[in-house]
């Protein structure tokens, strides 16, 4: 146990050192994820123009709070492991990584976590500026922040695992990364990046509650905006934990079958 812990700590330190070098890029990556911000501006303008000054019970400032929340949470949810796997499998650079005494999954997982540490303070500055410009208001309950952070962590881990599975498809097909686009569409749509989930048709909501998406994006955003309770957070965490287990075993399965195929081509 201590040996594994030591390995993880060393990995994290190395990955952190690497990510700090990319700090300028991190800002640009953050600014290029604009879908939440575009949707925020559009909804705010519609609510301001609506007769009652609100749409579906949301005023412009409440839209600002919700969408800045999803923007913040989606920043913590960025995963690029599918690209790395795609490259490593096709170029054969996966082979040396297989020789290490640790599943390569952990190298990438700690890499993503280290990037989050670099991203977090920069993100806070940007959120503060955007919130001031758009007139967003966040909750004052410290427990809500903790719960949102916890959900974001569970959500990030779930997303990491499913993106890992998508990346592993590179064992079989050259175009594994384009599957990502389609999966991302479900994540953005059901997660609530286009609108709060309550704005969707009822049947979509009925389907969405069984998926992990609303609990990783929309729910933490609602917690930050003060529109969701801690009990909601608890239920969301339970669903996310169940999906984590499913994705974990799915990843193991794809990895085992894929490695056999990788070995068979003579790597």
């Amino acid at each position, binding site marked *: 146990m201590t040996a594994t812990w030591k390995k993880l700590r060393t990995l994290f330190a190395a990955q952190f050192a690497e990510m700090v070098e990319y700090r300028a*890029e991190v800002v*640009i*990556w953050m*600014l*290029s*994820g*604009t*879908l939440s911000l*575009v*949707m925020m*501006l*559009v*909804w*705010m*303008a*519609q609510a*301001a*123009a*609506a*007769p009652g000054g609100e*749409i*579906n019970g949301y005023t412009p400032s409440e839209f600002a709070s919700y969408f800045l929340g999803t923007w913040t949470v989606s920043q913590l949810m960025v995963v690029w492991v599918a690209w790395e796997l795609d490259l490593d499998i096709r170029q054969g650079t996966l082979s040396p990584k297989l020789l290490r005494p640790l599943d390569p999954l952990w190298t990438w997982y700690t890499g993503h976590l280290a990037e989050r540490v670099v991203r977090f303070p920069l993100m806070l500055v940007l959120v503060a500026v955007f919130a001031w410009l758009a007139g967003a208001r966040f909750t004052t309950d410290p427990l809500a922040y903790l719960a949102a952070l916890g959900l974001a962590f569970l959500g990030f881990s779930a997303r990491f695992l499913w993106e890992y599975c998508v990346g592993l498809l590179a064992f079989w*097909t*050259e*175009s*594994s*990364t*384009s*599957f990502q*686009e*389609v999966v*991302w*569409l479900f994540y*953005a*749509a059901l997660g609530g990046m*286009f*609108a709060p989930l309550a*704005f*969707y*048709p009822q049947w979509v909501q009925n389907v969405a509650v069984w998926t992990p998406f609303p609990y990783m994006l929309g729910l933490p955003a609602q917690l930050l905006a003060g529109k969701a309770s801690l009990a909601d957070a608890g239920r969301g965490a339970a669903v996310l934990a169940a999906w984590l287990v499913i994705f974990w075993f799915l990843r193991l399965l794809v990895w085992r079958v894929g490695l056999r195929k990788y070995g068979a081509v003579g790597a």
Partner: protein
Amino acid sequence: MTRYLRLIRIFTGATLSAQLEYRANFLGAVLASVGEAGVALLGIAVLFGQPELDTVGGWTFHEALLVTGLFMLTEGVISVFIQPNMSKIAEAVRTGSMDFTLLKPIDAQFGVSTRHLNVLRVTDLLIGAGLIGYAASHLTVTPGGLAGAALLYLSAVVIVYCIWLALSTTAFWFVKTQNASELFNGVFGAARFPVTAFPVPVRALLTFVVPVAFITTVPAQAMTGTLTPALALASPLVAAALFVLTRLFWLRAVASYTSASS
């Protein structure tokens, strides 16, 4: 002039035969196009799904769909014609293979802008054209409006090309330019909605600072016959001004180029 047209034909033939060797990639390209179309359509579907909203920024559903179609079409133009060429400029500067382009007896800007094509993303163009056709069939579009839209869309393409070229030309001084194009994509994402759907200060930003409004909103307005003469004139003027500026910027960059070894 005919020489340049012949060169375009040769370049196209060469990239076509190179790309069609990898047939499996076609499935991937289709998936990616479907994903992008889904994002663009969901955005307006949820907006118009609200009972309180029958227009967004003064645009009806089919008018807004026209903007979405133009957005998808432009994504197609970027991924088929512009991005495959522009992304290679940085690499050519870094490795020094820009030398070969500059030595050829054709205009270097023409050379770097037309050499490559990504045929696989033609699906984006088809989806965009299909959406525009579908939306237009529910609106009254005059032949004059259509011609005006086509002309204004041409300036839109010139504007997009110029912005990408300007960003990619910075590669002569900076090693990496992907990040700049990422940023452009982020701002361009706002073009999926009519510019009047945004709050007033942002609208000004999207028209005058980053001319996103000219790319999708203005051609759509020409098609529905709601375009003001001022904007109709502004779009080709902006395109012409940008073209001259990026041309000068490109010439300056090439003049300062000293190959990879120095």
